[in-house]
C-alpha cells in the first residue's frame, strides 16, 4: 500500500472543502424572495456624476437597485449607489410634521404646521420687508422644486434672498466658466473620457467622489497604456493610483503651478497660435485687454524654478506635466472642490481653462475643461434655473436690467416686480440670520447646521428665539433638525417625480417608484401649498403638477442659449437623459458646445468653427490671475494645514449613507489622516487620539497614520455628525463667487 503523506493531505483538504460548501442555500432563497415585480427608471441620489439607476419594486416597496444600461454609466453603479434601498426605509424617517414647543419638537398636523409657517413669513414680510425672508435650498432638490421656490421668492415676494448649498460647492466653477466663456456649465461631456489621451485631474479625488467617472478614466487608461494621467493633489489618494505623475504641492500654491505650466507650454512652443490668435482675448486681472506678449511677460514670474521654491514641486516635474498636457492629442481636465472651495476659487478655475485655450485642447472630442459637481442636481437644479441670489433662470443675472425685463415679460409680471438688487449670498445670509436681520428662513433638502463652515457661530444663530426656521427634511437625525422651529416631512428620492441634471448638462427624469411614507409630501407640493397660503398671485404660480413646472421652465429657457425646448416629458420618459441645449424634439442633445455643427446656438453657416457666444466678441478669455495664498496660511502658532473632504463610503453629512449598515460599518466615525513623518515627530501611532486645534475650535479624532497626506497636511472627512470638522473650518470666502475656503486652514495637532 503506497499512500504518501502528500496524498493524505490533499485528500484531507478536498474533504474539508467539501464539508464547508453548502452554507448559502438559505440565503439564496432569501434573494429569490426579493425578485422585483417591476423596474422604475431613476437617477442615483448621491454625487454629481448622476448615474442612471433602475429601482426594483416589489409589493409597493423598493427592494433593490441596478444600474441603468442606457444612461451614461452603462449599467454600472458605485458602492453607494448599489446600496441605496435601506435609506428609504430607515427608522429615522420623518413621517409627520412637527412644531417646536418649549424647545421640543411636538407632532402636529400639516395644517397647523403650514399655518404657523405662513403666519411667521407674513409677519416678517409685513414688518421687515422682503429682504427679511429667505429660501435656502439645495443641489439635491429637484429642478422643478428649485425653479418654483426661486419664482415664488423673486416674482411672488420680490425677495432675492434665494440661496442654497451649491454656493458652498459650485459657485467658483460658475464664476470661472462665466468669466472665461461668458456662459456657465462645461462645454464637453462624459464621452470625452473615452477619447482623451491625457487626463489632468486637479483638486479632485475622483476615485472616491465620482467613482463611476473614475472607473471610466481607469478603463480608458487600461485600454490604451499610452494614455497619460496627471493627478495634482497634496494627498496621494486612490485617484493617484492610476497616475503617471502625481504632483504633491504645498496646499494653496496650485495657482502658481498652473501659471508655470502655461509658461513652459509657451517656452516649448506648444501653444496653439492659430487657435488663440483667433478665439482668445488676453485680459489682465484689472479687465484690461492686452496681447499675447503681455501674457508672456506676466508669466515671467512663474518660471518652474521660481514656482519650485514656492510650491515644493520640482521644476522638472512641472515641465514634465506641462509637456504631457500640451503634447497629448486630446487633453481633458477634471477638477472639483480642491479648486472651488478656495478664496481664489474663480481664479483657479480660470487658470485651468487658460491651459486649454492656450493649447487649443477644447471643442474637440476628448479635449475639454470639465468641472465636476458634487451634488446630483447642483448643475441642473440650481445653476441652470437660477436658484442663487444673483441669478435668474437660464444664466441671466439680476443686476442686468434687460435680463430682469425679459424674464418679467416671460413670467407675465408687472415691470419692476423683480427687485434690482441681488440678495444675500450664503455666508452673508447665515450671518444675517444669526444677527437676527433675516427673520424667517425656509430650508429645503439640506443640512446647514452640519455643512456651513465655522458652523458654531451659525448654530448659535439658529438657536435664537427671535428668528424662525422651517425645515423640509426626510431624516430625523439630521443636525439641522435640532434647531428648526417647524419640521416638515418631505418625500424622499424615489417617492416623487422630477428632474435631476448632472455635471455633463444631462437631464434625466426620476420617475416615482413608491408612495411617500406616512404623511410625507413632495417638496414641490409643500412649496405650492406655501405659495397659496402666502397669497401669491395664482397667475404667477399657475402650477398643479411637477410637469407643469417643467414645461414652463422649457418655455423660459427657449429664448436663451440654454434651450430645453426639445426635452419634453414624453422624451424624458423614454430616454435616459438628454444633454442641453436641445432646441427641438428631434434634436439629439449637445455633446460639445461653442463649436459650429455641434452647438445648435451657432448657425450652420457661421464663418468660424468656434464661437464663444457668451462673450460679445465671440472670444473666450485667458485671464492673468496672479498667485495669492490662502486666507489663513500656517504660521508658528498653527503650523499645519487642515483640509476636509469625502470618503467613498459616505456622502455629504451622512444622513443617508449612515443608514446603510455596510457603509456605516465601513467608516463609522471621522478620523484624522496624518503623514508618517508628522506622526513620528509627534509620537502619534495609528489609532491614537489626536487633538486638532484651529483658531475656531478644538476637537479630538482618531489618527490614521499613512503617506496619503503630505507632511504638514492633515485631512479629516466631513460626514460625521458627532465629529463635525466644520466647527474647525474657516468661513473666509472668494470675493467673486462668495464660496468659502473649506479646503485650507491653519491647524496645530498634538497627541491626546
Amino acid at each position, binding site marked *: 500500500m503506497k499512500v504518501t*503523506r*502528500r496524498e*493524505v*493531505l490533499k485528500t*484531507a*483538504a478536498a474533504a*474539508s472543502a467539501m464539508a*464547508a460548501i453548502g452554507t448559502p442555500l438559505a440565503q439564496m432563497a432569501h434573494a429569490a424572495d426579493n425578485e422585483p415585480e417591476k423596474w422604475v427608471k431613476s437617477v442615483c441620489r448621491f454625487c454629481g456624476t448622476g448615474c442612471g439607476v433602475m429601482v426594483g419594486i416589489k409589493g409597493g416597496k423598493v427592494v433593490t437597485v441596478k444600474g441603468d444600461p442606457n444612461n451614461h454609466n452603462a449599467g454600472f453603479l458605485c458602492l453607494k449607489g448599489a446600496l441605496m434601498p435601506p435609506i428609504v426605509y430607515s427608522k429615522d424617517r420623518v413621517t409627520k410634521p412637527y412644531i417646536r414647543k418649549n424647545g421640543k419638537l411636538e407632532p402636529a398636523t400639516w395644517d397647523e404646521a403650514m399655518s404657523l409657517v405662513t403666519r411667521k413669513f407674513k409677519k416678517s414680510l409685513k414688518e421687515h420687508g422682503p429682504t427679511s425672508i429667505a429660501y435656502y435650498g439645495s443641489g439635491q432638490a429637484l429642478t422643478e422644486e428649485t425653479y418654483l421656490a426661486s419664482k415664488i421668492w423673486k416674482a411672488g415676494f420680490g425677495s432675492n434672498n434665494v440661496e442654497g448649498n451649491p454656493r458652498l460647492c459650485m459657485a467658483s466653477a460658475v464664476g470661472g466658466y462665466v468669466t472665461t466663456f461668458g456662459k456657465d456649465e462645461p462645454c464637453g461631456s462624459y464621452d470625452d473620457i473615452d477619447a482623451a489621451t491625457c487626463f489632468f485631474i486637479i483638486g479632485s479625488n475622483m476615485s472616491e467622489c465620482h467613482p463611476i467617472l473614475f472607473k471610466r478614466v481607469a478603463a480608458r487608461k487600461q485600454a490604451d497604456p499610452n494614455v497619460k494621467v496627471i493627478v495634482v493633489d497634496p494627498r496621494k489618494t486612490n485617484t493617484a493610483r492610476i497616475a503617471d505623475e502625481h504632483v504633491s504641492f504645498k496646499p494653496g500654491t496650485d495657482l502658481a503651478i498652473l501659471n508655470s505650466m502655461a509658461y513652459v507650454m509657451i517656452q516649448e512652443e506648444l501653444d496653439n497660435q492659430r487657435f488663440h490668435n483667433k478665439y482668445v482675448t488676453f485680459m489682465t486681472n484689472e479687465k484690461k485687454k492686452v496681447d499675447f506678449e503681455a501674457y508672456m511677460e506676466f508669466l515671467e514670474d512663474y518660471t518652474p524654478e521660481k514656482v519650485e521654491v514656492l510650491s515644493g514641486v520640482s521644476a522638472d516635474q512641472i515641465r514634465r506635466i506641462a509637456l504631457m498636457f500640451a503634447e497629448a492629442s486630446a487633453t481633458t481636465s477634471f477638477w472639483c472642490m480642491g479648486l472651488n472651495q478656495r478664496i481664489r476659487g474663480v481664479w483657479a478655475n480660470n487658470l485651468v481653462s487658460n491651459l486649454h485655450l492656450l493649447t487649443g485642447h477644447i471643442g474637440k472630442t476628448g479635449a475639454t475643461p470639465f468641472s465636476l459637481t458634487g451634488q446630483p442636481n447642483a448643475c441642473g437644479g440650481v445653476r441652470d434655473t437660477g436658484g442663487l441670489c444673483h441669478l435668474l433662470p437660464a444664466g441671466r443675472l439680476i443686476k442686468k436690467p434687460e435680463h430682469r425685463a425679459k424674464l418679467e415679460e416671460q413670467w407675465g409680471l408687472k415691470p419692476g416686480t423683480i427687485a434690482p438688487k441681488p440678495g444675500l449670498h450664503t455666508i452673508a445670509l447665515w450671518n444675517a440670520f444669526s444677527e437676527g436681520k433675516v427673520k424667517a428662513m425656509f430650508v429645503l433638502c439640506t443640512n446647514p447646521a452640519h455643512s456651513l463652515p465655522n458652523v458654531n457661530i451659525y448654530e448659535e444663530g439658529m438657536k435664537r428665539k427671535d428668528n424662525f426656521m422651517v425645515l423640509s427634511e426626510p431624516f430625523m437625525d439630521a443636525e439641522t433638525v435640532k434647531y428648526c422651529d417647524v419640521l416638515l416631512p418631505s418625500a424622499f428620492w424615489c417617492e416623487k417625480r422630477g428632474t435631476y441634471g448632472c455635471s455633463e448638462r444631462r437631464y434625466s427624469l426620476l420617475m416615482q417608484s413608491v408612495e411617500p411614507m406616512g404623511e410625507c409630501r413632495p417638496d414641490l407640493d409643500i412649496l405650492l401649498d406655501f405659495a397659496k397660503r402666502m397669497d401669491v398671485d395664482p397667475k404667477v404660480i399657475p402650477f398643479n403638477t411637477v410637469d407643469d413646472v417643467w414645461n414652463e421652465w422649457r418655455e423660459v429657457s427657449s429664448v436663451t442659449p440654454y434651450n430645453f425646448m426639445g426635452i419634453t416629458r414624453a422624451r424624458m420618459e423614454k430616454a435616459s437623459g438628454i444633454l442641453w441645449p436641445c432646441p427641438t424634439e428631434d434634436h439629439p442633445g449637445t455633446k460639445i458646445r461653442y463649436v459650429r455643427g455641434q452647438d445648435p446656438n451657432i448657425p450652420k453657416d457661421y464663418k468660424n468653427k468656434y464661437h464663444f457666444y457668451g462673450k460679445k466678441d465671440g472670444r473666450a478669455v485667458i485671464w492673468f490671475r496672479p498667485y495669492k495664498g490662502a486666507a489663513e496660511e500656517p504660521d508658528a502658532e498653527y503650523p499645519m494645514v487642515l483640509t476636509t473632504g469625502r470618503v467613498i463610503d459616505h456622502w455629504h453629512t451622512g444622513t443617508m449613507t449612515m443608514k446603510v449598515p455596510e457603509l456605516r460599518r465601513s467608516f463609522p466615525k471621522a478620523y484624522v489622516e496624518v503623514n508618517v513623518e508628522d506622526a513620528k515627530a509627534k509620537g502619534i501611532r495609528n*489609532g491614537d487620539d489626536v487633538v486638532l486645534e484651529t483658531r475656531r475650535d478644538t476637537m479630538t479624532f482618531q489618527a490614521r497614520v499613512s503617506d496619503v497626506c503630505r507632511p504638514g497636511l492633515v485631512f479629516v472627512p466631513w460626514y460625521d455628525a458627532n465629529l463635525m470638522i466644520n466647527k474647525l473650518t474657516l468661513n473666509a470666502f472668494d470675493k467673486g463667487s462668495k464660496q468659502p475656503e473649506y479646503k485650507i486652514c491653519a491647524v496645530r495637532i498634538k497627541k491626546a
Partner: protein
Amino acid sequence: MNSLLKIAKAAAGIGLVVLSGTVSAQERPVVEECLRCHDVKQYQYELKHSAHAFDKEKKEISCEQCHIFHYSPLTSYYARDKYYDKKIFEPGTFNRRKMQGNARHTDLTEKCMVCHSDLRKNTEGGPISMIGGLAHDAFLGKNGSTRKTCQGCHINMAHLPDFDRDLTINAEFAKKLAEASGKGGQENEK
C-alpha cells in the same frame, strides 16, 4: 466536535511518524542534518532575513522548531554517502506553491506556542494590535470561529517565495531580501 477533528489529525500524524521512523538526533546540528536530504539552502537564506531568524534570546531558530522533525539513521547514513543526490531532491522541481498548501494543513500550533504562548502579547510582552487580538479570539473560539491554524493567517513568516513578494503584508520582508541580494548576499535566488 473538535476532539473528533483532533483524533483524525492525530491519526494522520501517527501514520507519518511510522512511515518515516522517527528517532531523535542529538549529535549533529539539526539544520545540517536536514540539509543532507533536503536541498533547502534558499529557504535557509530566506529564514536568515526573516522575522524568525532569531528567537527572543537571540539564538538562531532552526528547522525543527517549526517543522515536524523526522529522522532515520538509515537515510542519514545513505545521505552522508551522497546516496540521495540531487536527482531525487532537485530544488528546481520543488513546487513552492504546493508546498505552502501542505504546510498550511499541518497544525504547527504547538510549535508556535512554545514562543508565542500568550496570544494577547507579542514575544517581547507588548500588546498586539486590536485586529490581531480579534483574530486570535476567533482562533481560540472565544469570538467567532475559524478552521485556520496559525499559519493560515501568518503566511511567509520564515520563507518568502517570489510569488508572495508583492503582497502588501510582506513588504518589509521583501525589502530586506531585496537589500540583501543587492549586497551580493544572495546565493541561489530563484
